């Protein structure tokens, strides 16, 4: 492959981009194509967007002598995933005016809109700006949206931790004003100092993800992040954070050097100042030591493979000027969302709505988008997105609960959330076709119908109440965190998936490939056999992931 000192092309694009400006303005003005220039396609990610095209329409458009139907996906930066009802209303309108209309809740607690034509990008970002929303660094080789446990149970601690997510997000924002100049027409000041001590002019070698979990819930899948922070709570008091590093799920088919990895525990720090310093310096270590020649081997996990966990820790302590304490004990018990109504310590109410694959749209049987719009119009609930692609109607006062309840009933949302089966409610899928350029197979468009075919198998073995996690991705890059599921389906070609099993339920053990390139019929047959063995041989309440690991993976 490549020489070690041979930088990947994206490195040149970053350093010569004049603070992520590149030729984005020229690309926007180019009338003859709906696409942007090649280098700008790398840069626009740092502004929270991807250039995509409707892959379903390629052949037909080509026959018509039209270029592919290019459009853009825009992803918001929402640390901790919280917005006001006014912001939801605004997003609803922007989605209708400028995108496909579907609001997609992502696996990283934010929302993204698809199908925005080039000429609609600026109006979209300008509308977001009036709502105090932005998409800066939502994609690209920078720290992405900071996740934080969304579960409302222990709210006193949660508020402290949410504040942390914001601080980390701000700490890791690029310093360039490019976003404001290009999209919001801010005047460029020629000699403005834009020095960026964290990112310099080369940014990180690859994307970087940070999440904060509050045990016992690991709803953020903390170990799948480059940095995972685990809140240490003793006697209802936040004592500090355990820091883990080097998680990342992406791999490449046919490239044995790539693999999904969970984060390694580094240790514990107590004060806010120290946590921020440690997070910052892990990023500088990755900036200085990450692989910039081969983007497939550029995530922090590979840097740690080279440095060793101890080596990383040593360098981190040197850069921080303080030692990490040994990690404090913690226990994760669950990773799922608490559907329906919950009340927190202060007496406020929270309703978690089941949103299949995070897609908010109006369907004939389920007018979810209208329902959420009307609930937002009451102004009585905040919206918090979860890492499982659902939305929590948050901070509803006791006296407002009947009003929200009434709307949930009126549009059938409550019934839908209650009725959906356990497998469906614990499932997750990435976007894949028709917009994701990386997709090899379907995911969110296909998983619902596949689940409808798996459900009868579960019923056959009386397993329909089992909270098995099933995750599907259209490629091995892991946006839907398929390697961290009890059953992972990873697309290899159209209509074919590698079947992975043996992951645990709480996100502390990855699954392992069990069968190659299975079509639907093969998948259903294999799952039928697995469930049959599971129901006959399992011990007590042993869950499917643990059983599968012992039976088919361990020692093999």
């Amino acid at each position, binding site marked *: 492959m490549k020489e070690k000192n041979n930088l990947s092309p994206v490195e040149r694009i970053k350093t010569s981009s004049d603070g992520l400006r590149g030729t984005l303005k020229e690309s926007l003005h180019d009338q003859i194509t709906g696409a942007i220039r090649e280098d700008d396609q790398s840069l626009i990610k740092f502004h929270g967007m991807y250039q995509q095209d409707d892959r379903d329409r390629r052949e037909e458009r080509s026959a018509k002598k039209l270029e592919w*139907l290019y459009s853009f996906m825009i992803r918001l930066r929402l640390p901790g995933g919280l917005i006001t009802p006014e912001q939801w209303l605004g997003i609803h309108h922007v989605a209708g005016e400028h995108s496909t209309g579907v609001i997609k809740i992502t696996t990283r607690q934010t929302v993204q809109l698809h199908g925005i034509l080039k*000429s609609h990008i600026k109006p979209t970002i300008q509308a977001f700006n009036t709502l105090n929303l932005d998409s800066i660094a939502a994609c690209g080789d920078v720290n992405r949206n900071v996740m934080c446990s969304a579960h409302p149970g222990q709210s006193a601690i949660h508020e402290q931790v949410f504040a942390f997510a914001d601080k980390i997000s701000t700490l890791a924002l690029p310093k360039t004003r490019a976003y404001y100049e290009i999209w919001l027409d801010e005047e460029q000041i020629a000699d403005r100092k834009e020095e960026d001590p964290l990112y310099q002019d080369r940014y990180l070698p690859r994307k970087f993800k940070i999440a904060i979990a509050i045990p016992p819930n690991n709803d953020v899948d903390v170990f799948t992040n480059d940095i995972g922070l685990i809140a240490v709570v003793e006697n209802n008091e936040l004592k500090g954070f355990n820091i883990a590093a080097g998680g990342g799920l992406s791999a490449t088919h046919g490239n044995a050097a790539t693999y999904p990895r969970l984060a390694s525990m580094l240790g514990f720090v107590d004060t806010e100042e120290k946590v921020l310093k440690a997070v910052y310096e892990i990023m500088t270590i990755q900036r200085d030591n990450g692989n910039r020649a081969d983007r497939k081997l550029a995530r922090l996990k590979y840097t740690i493979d080279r440095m060793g966990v101890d080596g990383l820790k040593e360098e981190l302590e040197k850069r921080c000027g303080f030692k990490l304490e040994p990690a404090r004990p913690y226990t994760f018990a669950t990773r799922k969302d608490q559907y329906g109504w919950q009340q927190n310590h202060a007496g406020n109410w929270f309703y978690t709505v089941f949103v299949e694959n995070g897609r908010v749209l109006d369907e004939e049987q389920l007018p979810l988008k209208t329902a959420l719009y009307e609930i937002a119009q009451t102004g009585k609930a905040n919206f918090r997105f979860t890492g499982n692609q659902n939305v929590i109607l948050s901070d509803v006062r006791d006296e407002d609960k009947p009003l929200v309840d009434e709307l949930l009933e009126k549009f059938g949302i409550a019934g839908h959330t209650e009725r959906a089966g356990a497998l469906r409610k614990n499932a997750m899928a990435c976007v894949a076709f028709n917009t994701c350029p990386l997709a090899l197979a379907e995911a969110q468009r296909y998983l619902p119908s596949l689940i409808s075919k798996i459900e009868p198998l579960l019923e056959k073995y009386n397993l329909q109440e089992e909270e098995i996690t099933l995750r599907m991705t259209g490629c091995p890059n892991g946006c839907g965190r398929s390697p961290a599921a009890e059953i992972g389906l990873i697309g290899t070609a159209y209509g074919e998936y590698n079947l992975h099993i043996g992951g645990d339920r709480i996100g502390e053990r990855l699954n392992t490939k069990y069968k190659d390139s299975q079509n639907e019929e093969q998948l259903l047959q294999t799952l039928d056999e697995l469930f049959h063995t599971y129901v006959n041989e399992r011990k007590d309440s042993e869950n499917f992931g643990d059983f599968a690991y012992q039976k088919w993976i361990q020692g093999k």
Partner: protein
Amino acid sequence: MLEAAKLKQWDELIGTASPEELIWINGYLSGIVARGARAPEPTTEAAPAVAVKKAHLVFGTETGNARKLAGRLAAAAKKKGISLKLSGLDQYRLTDLPKEDYFFVVISTQGEGEPPLTAKKFYEHIHATQPDLSTLKFSVLALGDTAYPLYCKTGEDVQQRFKALGATEIIPMQKCDVDYDADADTWFEQVAKLLSAPATVSATAPAPAPVAKKASGKKYYEGTIVANINLNDRGSNRETYHIELTTEEPVVYEPGDTIGIVPRNRAAVVDRILALTGADGEQLVTTPKASASIRELLTIHLNICYLMTNTVKKYAALTAQDIPDTRMDLVDLLRIYPVKDATVFTEVLSLLLPVAPRLYSIASSPAAHGENEIHITVAKDRFLAEDEQRFGLCSEFLGDLPTGSTLNFYIHKSRNFKLPAPDKKIIMIGPGTGVAPFRSFLAERDATGAGGENWFFFGEQYFEKDFLYQTEMQAFHQTGVLSRLDLAFSRDQAERRYVQHRMLQQAADLYNWIEQGAHIYVSGVKDPMSKEVEQTLLQIIREQGGKTTEEATAFLEQLRKENRYEKDVY
């Protein structure tokens, strides 16, 4: 047009030639003109023609890398003065393959050694059929990723298959890894060297084109529809059809010419007429216009749509009925005011006028698309406006005809709407179907390597749905054939924007081009487009040239006299 000396030579030649020789000279010159090549020096008999090598660079892409690379290489070729046509394999007409001369393929390999999506049809076609490629000279640039076991497999497959079909590999296949630029350049240097070498054209002069059978009347050709594509995307308000016709015999035409197509009346309407009158469709009848079966007369030869008032009057007299002065379709006339019997109806046939041909600008170029092929661009709304609304629902819309259908057409020569000398700049203003002759101009200038700069103003309603020939225009722009391309999509923003707004935005440059001798062409709808464009031109001449209204009008009139301002509007 000829210098006196040349004219004298010419007169001498003609004066001494036999009638047979004159016919031969006539065909010989037509052949030269049709090929877009220069006539050989008059003194050197049968000297080798200065022929441009016919070379085609095609790409099959999945991620877009092969497309970008092919575009870059084609643009580099243009800079070196090499004429190289660029096409995506997803838009490549597979039946053209045996007719190719030099053929260069840039193609990637996907996953498990599969062809990229856009090349799938091509790949399947060459493997499932046995085209004769014995005259094809080719080379493959294969893109791949060494991380995969079946590195550059698709490229290898194409190479092997081409060889098996008799093609000659003139430059060895070049395989490239993910950092393909350097290897691609190495390969391309060989391609460029090969194509810029002097043409080894055989010393035979172009074959004389067949002389039109009747010198006086129109020469009719029979064309077969080989492609009929609605260029507008789903959701568009427009339906614009790109229709490709092929002919057995070569068609002599030039960019800027139009074709006349005789529309056919709908079979259902003809059947209805036969049923109403009780006439036998197969009965042979002779009318002043033609002799044919009644069915054929009604289908091809006679106009049955929206009859003239005068025709209706004659019908009233013939059938001795009291019919008000009006225009109507024959089928309605027969329904409301029936004929007594089939015999009377045969007399009615003699009253009918012949079908009027419809004229369409030709969108193809002889040099680029060959002399056995004609392309046209036909808008359904124009058909609706001119035919359905004016003539009733009788005639068939070309866009509805399936491939394999045949049409009769003739070439209507354009007098002045022609390309100027190859080094002249041209400005083309052609929104909507006005694009047709300019596609022809651009393809011709591309294929013949004309050096003059080209500037095109195009407009329609929506960018993503209505950009007619978008990928071709992008390729012309990328390779430098189109040095400027300005677009106006009227409904993509709150205020309506048309080509004339774009012209005003570029007023200074536009005027500069005119001053530098550019020829201006306007094509498309007469009213209001061409009138507003003319007003805009006058405004630009006034403002940029510092002229009064009268001076500007005189200036444009002068351009018109010099054949530098030409319109093809309808």
